[in-house]
């Protein structure tokens, strides 16, 4: 019996291969989009990690010599012989005709995991050569630079930060002509039991503690969260397609269900068989989806081989193995999506009376009949979304709000379209136009799922484009503001600080000491900064809110600037007053955005800071200069500063921007993909409807409209519906972006990303959506235009 029932169930798909294709393809595309977005997130993360690792601002404690000194190799050996797990580093500048590059020498035998170049982990990498002959790793640009001055093998490794070359410590000593010399030591995270403390063994070496995640990391976390939301949205678009396909298939199989039950197949077994059938489809589609997602990632990401290592667990160079966890998440999302899409249909089958009559158009009709109910539901959901936005709080609320908003809008779409089409019909002149609008309205129920998918796709694209572009504008502005000094350097004590300031006189355009103290303000832990106010601050800082000549008042010691975090948490805004010290109360004159910083900050003038905290000496300085390389060389060769205490902001900035640009490009490509999926949904709906609609078209044809005209009208109809949907998607997309930027982000990170509008982008998206609709409608319209007159005549002969 089970076998026979399975054969009967399968026969439906055998007769409707297109439907099966829609189901599997829809699900696979949904899963693929989800996987693709995950891949891009992982790509970006891997890039930041590589940047963090190679820029040295990292996860390991380090031992540094005093300014102007180096660490003799014997010290390293002595520390190793005392049991300390340290690894030697020699860093220096290597002059090339196109400017100097940073050369970093490491010892792969002792360096903690993850510090070596990515390519060195490859199986075909010749480590013997790395250790003995010398191999250099660098990105493409830097590699070309080095090749002109060094006669060693240079391997291009995109994970190495720009302007940096990695090689063996011995090779570095040779190239830099600094035999027996080290510039710093990296401390492994785990050390053996019972060692003599470093303060006794090496009191002259300064221990720099590992940084727990950089500001950049926190800023990008927000970006990832938003991209993940985009992944979900893409998935939702796919699920609409699946929902449509499953709903139609189940409706069409009602007769079969009735017959099978009449033949004695228990209802419970029948439902389980259908569940099993769907599960098989979901697994199949999930497999396809994960592979497709991988292909999307592989096509979109330039250096996929290096970064997919982490994502897919590729441990053999050249052959990529998908990680089990990856498969599982792909299957889970495919199965979950199918369950979501099929639950309603299965429920109906389970409740269907044994003797219910078969209704081939019931599915379409039911959608129409339910319009009022879904309208009410949509109104409820949208009201709920509004209520959540006004009174809700917390991350979960943010996502609940998104869900309410999107579902509500999707459900409201057919209703809104009906109203608009009704108005058009009322205003229509001429019988053909009248018929056109009426027929479009009549088609709406069958098209509504596809149109909902299109709505969500356009809205998601508008939302994500807005979010990503706003993010980019904000991020670039923030980088300019905070990383304005070309060079950051550190010293150890007041004597060195004074010497450095004297040395920099006339050499740097501006010297900005970083003076800060951890304190409590407005009852919250916060950092107070003393700023040497000059052109850098005046030109680069942008305020969220300000009042009057901000920097003049601050320089005069009459006012304070606070960051957004402190302002929001303490309820302070411009005009309020803040106690920066027990007896010093200053008016707040400006609020500054401070992305990626978890705690509050306030800025006063350097003079006031020194009066309040005379014991605090600046040990870090931002340097403004027109020639960072020359200043850097002067600092190392003349002042004797270690490379390790200098941070070249240009490198960090360029690298961060490059990583983001890559992510933006990929997001653009994903936009096109989502729209393609929505277009696919339209195509499938039109094809499905084409067969059912023949009886409605035949009379119009018989009344004198040619098949060609009918075809053109069919195309026009798709364009009209898509256009209306796109117009309705605009406010939804903006609402989506607003929720992501101002609610979800604030809940997650405590700061709000300003929202910018990009009308040109939206127009382009609308155009893409129309193109997708036209392309989807082209084939069905052509088919209609070429329908044999005999087919149309058969409608009247009742011989279909």
């Amino acid at each position, binding site marked *: 019996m089970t076998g026979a029932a399975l054969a009967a169930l399968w026969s439906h798909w055998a007769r409707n291969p297109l439907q099966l294709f829609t189901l599997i393809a829809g699900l696979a595309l949904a899963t693929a989009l989800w996987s693709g977005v995950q891949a891009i997130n992982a790509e970006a993360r891997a890039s930041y990690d590589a940047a963090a690792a190679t820029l040295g601002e990292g996860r390991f404690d380090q031992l540094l010599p005093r300014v102007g000194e180096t660490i003799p190799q*014997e010290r390293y050996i002595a520390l190793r*012989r005392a049991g300390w*797990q340290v690894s030697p580093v020699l860093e220096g500048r290597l002059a090339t005709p196109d400017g100097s590059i940073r050369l970093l020498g490491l010892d792969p035998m002792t360096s903690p995991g993850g510090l070596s170049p990515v390519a060195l*982990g490859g199986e075909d990498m010749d480590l013997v050569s790395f*250790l*003995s002959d010398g191999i250099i790793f660098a990105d493409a640009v830097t590699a070309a630079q080095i090749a002109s001055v060094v006669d060693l093998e240079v391997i291009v490794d995109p994970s190495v930060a720009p302007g940096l070359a990695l090689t063996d410590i011995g090779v570095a*000593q040779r190239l830099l002509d600094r035999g027996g010399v080290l510039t710093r030591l990296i401390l492994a995270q785990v050390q053996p*039991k019972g060692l003599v403390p470093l303060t006794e063994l090496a009191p002259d070496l300064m221990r720099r503690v590992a940084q727990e995640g950089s500001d950049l990391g926190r800023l990008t976390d927000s970006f990832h969260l938003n991209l993940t939301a985009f992944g979900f949205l893409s998935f939702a678009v796919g699920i609409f397609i699946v929902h449509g396909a499953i709903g139609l298939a189940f409706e069409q199989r009602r007769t079969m269900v009735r017959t099978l039950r009449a033949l004695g197949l228990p209802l419970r077994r029948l439902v389980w068989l259908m569940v099993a059938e769907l599960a098989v489809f979901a697994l199949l589609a999930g497999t396809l989806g994960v592979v497709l997602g991988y292909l999307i990632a592989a096509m979109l990401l330039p250096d996929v081989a290096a970064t997919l290592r982490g994502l897919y667990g590729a441990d053999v160079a050249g052959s990529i193995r998908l990680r089990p966890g990856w498969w599982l998440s792909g299957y889970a999302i495919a199965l979950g999506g199918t369950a979501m899409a099929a639950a309603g249909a299965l429920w109906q089958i389970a409740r269907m009376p044994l003797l219910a009559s078969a209704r081939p158009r019931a599915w379409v009709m039911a959608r129409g009949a339910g319009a009022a109910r879904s309208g009410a539901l949509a109104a409820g959901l949208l009201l709920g979304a509004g209520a959540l936005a006004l009174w809700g709080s917390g991350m979960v609320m943010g996502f609940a709000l998104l869900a309410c908003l999107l579902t509500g809008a999707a459900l409201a779409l057919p209703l809104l379209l009906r109203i608009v089409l009704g108005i058009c019909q009322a205003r229509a002149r001429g019988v053909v136009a009248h018929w056109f609008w009426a027929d479009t309205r009549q088609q709406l129920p069958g098209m509504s799922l596809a149109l909902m998918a299109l709505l969500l796709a356009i809205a998601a694209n508008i939302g994500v484009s807005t979010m990503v572009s706003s993010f980019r504008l904000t991020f670039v502005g923030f980088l300019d503001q905070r990383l304005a000094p070309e060079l950051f350097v550190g010293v150890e004590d007041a004597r060195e600080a004074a010497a450095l300031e004297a040395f920099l006189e006339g050499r740097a355009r501006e010297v900005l000491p970083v003076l800060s103290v951890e304190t409590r303000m407005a009852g919250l832990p916060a950092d107070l900064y003393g700023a040497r106010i000059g052109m850098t601050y005046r030109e680069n800082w942008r305020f969220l809110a300000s009042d009057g000549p901000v920097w003049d008042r601050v320089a005069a010691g009459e006012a304070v600037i606070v960051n957004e975090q402190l302002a929001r948490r303490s309820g302070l805004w411009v005009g309020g007053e803040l106690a920066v010290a027990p007896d010093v109360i200053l008016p707040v004159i400006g609020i500054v955005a401070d992305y990626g910083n978890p705690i509050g900050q306030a800025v006063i003038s350097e003079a006031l800071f020194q009066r309040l905290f005379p014991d605090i000496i600046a040990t870090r300085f931002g340097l403004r200069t027109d020639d960072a390389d020359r200043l850097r060389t002067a600092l190392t060769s003349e002042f004797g500063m270690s490379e390790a205490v200098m941070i070249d902001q240009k490198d960090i900035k360029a690298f961060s921007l490059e990583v983001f640009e890559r992510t933006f490009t990929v997001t653009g490509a994903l936009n096109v993909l989502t729209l393609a999926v929505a277009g696919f949904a339209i195509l499938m709906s039109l094809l499905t409807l084409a067969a059912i609609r023949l009886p409605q078209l035949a009379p119009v044809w018989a009344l004198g409209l040619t098949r060609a005209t009918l075809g053109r009208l069919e195309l026009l109809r798709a364009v009209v519906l898509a256009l209306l949907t796109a117009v309705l998607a605009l406010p939804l997309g903006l609402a989506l972006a607003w929720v992501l930027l101002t609610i979800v982000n604030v809940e997650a990170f405590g700061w709000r990303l300003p929202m910018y509008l990009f009308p040109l982008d939206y127009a382009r998206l609308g155009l893409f959506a129309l193109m997708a609709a036209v392309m989807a409608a082209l084939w069905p319209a052509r088919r209609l235009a070429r329908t044999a007159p005999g087919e149309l005549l058969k409608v009247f002969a009742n011989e279909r």
Partner: protein
Amino acid sequence: MSVRALVLALCLLPCAALAQGFAGLGTDADGFAVPQPNPRFDFPADHGPHPDYRIEWWYLTANLTGPDGAIYGVQWTLFRSALAPHSEEGWGDPQIWFAHAAVTTPEDHFVAERLARGGIGQAGVTVQPFAAWIDDWQMAGARFDQMRLTASGPAFRYDLALSAQGPLVFHGEGGYSVKSAKGQASYYYSQPFFAVDGVLSLPQGDVPVTGAAWLDREWSSQPLAEDQTGWDWFSLSFEAGTKLMGFRLRQEDGSHFTSATWIEPDGVTTAFPDGAFQATPLEQTQVAGRTVPIRWRVELPEKGVDVTVGAVNPQSWMDVSLPYWEGPVLITGSHRGRGYLEMTGYE
């Protein structure tokens, strides 16, 4: 694959080129020296490194007992692996050093690993006075038969005094130990008579211990034939004072190549060729995702040996760059006693 595993794989695994005694020149294709029969050892120089051979080790295992009768196993191994058959000062030295240390109790197995490059003083071996070291791990003394042994890891450290109670013993034909029917061989001698006295520092506190240790010295350029997949090596000390070293090299076709040395309490040895010594797994267990035999039947009929050798701690897995099983064993059957078992090549 990590960088370190790659280094070890490059260095440790046998090379394809079969060059044993090739044209009588005694070097293989890469210029490494190859062990020759009838060796003449030169001590103390031969306690030191032989950089013209591809691999070499100073391998000590100890069976120890605490004041409450609790049993412990200790391992200390320094490996030398050459990328090229010479040595030089500085980072350019092709000699790679790595070391493993472990403490085994019936419940725990603590492991640590160290890696170093030669030529910079981080690791090495000198003979007069004797010192073998890597970082702070050291086996050193004025003479080879009176030494102090130290090592430490994140969860343990030990400091043990070694005092030889008998002579050096030479395996195979006077220290020329054949490893396959095709003639692969190594130079191999041992000091199996060390008395041990010292302290183990474990997470639960310091434990004074006494017992016996066995030091193996072996070097070669190609210890295994290409069709050999791994080895099972036994060092057994019986209560009567006699000792047995035996190993079984597993071959791809399922056959084995065995070799053994019987050691009298006064150090007089008898070498046994392939087939005399037999080791048969009796019980296997899952260790680190692999199936590894942890109870064996060991036979040497010529000496009336038919014993069962069982692991003190079946989970004595050396989770290092090139992982293997190594731990203390208890002996029952025709003879009783304690010893050490090493098993490699179980995937």
